[in-house]
């Protein structure tokens, strides 16, 4: 699979990215992050820290308020729509809310990511079969997505993200609904992909999957990168370590809100 754009070592490059939402939510503040090709990176942080927002910026669904997002050497704010579409076909995203089509079968859901890249039917069938087998849901091949248990849906979403053999996989909380055993299956799949050269970003709360010695972990807190645990055996040029904040403090923004400016309730507006 050819990668569009220049072929340097950096897959994802965020430069001082800030993303705010109206009215005054600061989802990401001044975040800089480089992810090399072939890396497996874990993104952690409290709920609401900005992990999903970061992944959405990388896949071009969200635009940064400030700063630059480069993927595979291309600045997302500058490329044409057609190029962005091509780029997206090289990125497999497993969304936190899955985004499955409820009325389609499992096989059809997985096929979507390959069909848009005009893969042959043979390839599609083989990939679907393989992935379902690896994730232990072969018997759900022709079941409608909305008839699946939540954990099965999660695995289907993962299979879809991986199916088209993308260069970059973004997995948002990929094991939230999975038991220990299924988590193992999923992580095996990711490791296999990673070994064959795919760059993988995983946003997760599940310490059992990121507390391995060989993983690089980036921790967000209230939209800022507060800690980076460096991968031991791979060398990256800049070991980032921001600010004086402690890990997992209760969100400062939240505390601020609670004390200094009392939350407004709009006594009449809330239920009429």
């Amino acid at each position, binding site marked *: 699979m050819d990668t569009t754009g220049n072929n340097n070592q950096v897959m994802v490059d965020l430069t001082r990215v800030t993303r705010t939402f109206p009215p005054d939510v600061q989802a990401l503040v001044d975040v800089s992050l480089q992810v090399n090709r072939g890396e497996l990176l874990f993104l952690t942080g409290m709920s609401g820290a900005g992990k999903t927002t970061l992944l959405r910026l990388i896949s071009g669904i969200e635009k940064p308020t400030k700063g630059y997002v480069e993927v595979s050497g291309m600045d997302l704010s500058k490329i044409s729509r*057609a190029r962005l579409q091509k780029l997206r076909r090289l990125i497999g*995203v497993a969304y936190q809310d899955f*985004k499955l089509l*409820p009325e389609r079968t499992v096989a059809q859901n997985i096929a979507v990511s390959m069909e848009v890249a005009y893969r042959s039917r043979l390839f599609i069938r083989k990939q679907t079969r393989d992935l379902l087998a690896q994730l232990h849901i072969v018997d759900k091949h022709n079941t409608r997505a909305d008839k699946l248990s939540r954990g099965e849906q999660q695995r289907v979403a993962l299979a879809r993200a991986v199916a088209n053999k993308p260069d970059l996989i973004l997995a948002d909380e990929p094991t939230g609904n999975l038991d220990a055993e299924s988590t193992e299956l999923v992580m095996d799949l990711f490791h296999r992909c990673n070994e064959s050269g795919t760059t993988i970003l995983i946003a997760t709360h599940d310490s059992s999957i990121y507390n391995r010695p060989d993983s690089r972990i980036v921790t967000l807190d209230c939209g800022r990168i507060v800690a980076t645990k460096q991968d031991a055996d791979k060398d990256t040029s800049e070991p980032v370590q921001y600010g004086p904040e402690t890990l997992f403090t209760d969100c400062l923004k939240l505390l601020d809100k609670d004390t200094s400016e009392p939350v407004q309730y709009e006594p009449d507006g809330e239920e009429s």
Partner: protein
Amino acid sequence: MNFLFAVFSQAGRNLLQTWRTQILSLMTITLSVLIFSFFYLVYTNALQAGEQLGDDLRLIVYLDEEAVPALQEQYREKILKFDRVERIEFISSLQAFNRFKDQLDEDQDILADIPQDFLPPSIEVYPVRSLDALSRIKRFSDYLQTLPGVIKVQYGREWVERFYTFIELLRIVVILSGSLLVLTTTFMMAHSIRLTLFTRQKELELLHLVGASNSYIRMPFFLEGGLLGLFGSLAGIAALYLLFNWTQLRFAGSALLGMFSFNFFPLPVIAMIIAMAIILCACGSFSSTRKILSR
């Protein structure tokens, strides 16, 4: 190859999977085509009928004395200046007397003692037979009145006016209901498209997210719209044809249909209606995806 295959299989799958909405859309299109072609048919036939009805619409110009050929030529010239006049005919006193005698039928004997020239000579003016002409008759009659030697201009004023009124009424009804229907069908289409978008929004968003190209997303819509347009308009025309035949059968005996000959659309018009429906539906469906793709 792969692209075409993907697009066709997409379109086919969508038609299968959302068939309930599709049937609703199909019926919407059928109904719209039926309504439009119905009013178009009524309108064209009303125009035609209007032309036929002018048949007896002559103005009789009474003269004070028999017109000699030279004078006749003069009158002819002055009257034919109006391009709305089809032909004119000179009736002498004698001819008028004979017509009256024919009209009286068996009672001809009452005319025995009467001089054959008691009726004045006249010119009969036949205006062009069209709806349009009706409205000008009064003015025309006023003009004829000013010609030298003319005693009086007579025509079935009351009847003509009523006729005109009715044709005008019919026209207003047809036009007003036609425009109401344009509104209505526009509306139904809007409803239909909104429904389609509601049922497909998730899918379109997903396709967008996984990087489907614009044409991959839009072509199936285009194809489906075209197919719906084709089948919808065929069904609509068929329904109208049935309705038309039913009406003709229903009123076969009455004087109504003996008088006018009503015609269905000729083939080229039918082909044009269907082509229009296909194009409109394909484009409407195509452009309905714009909002989602612009994101």
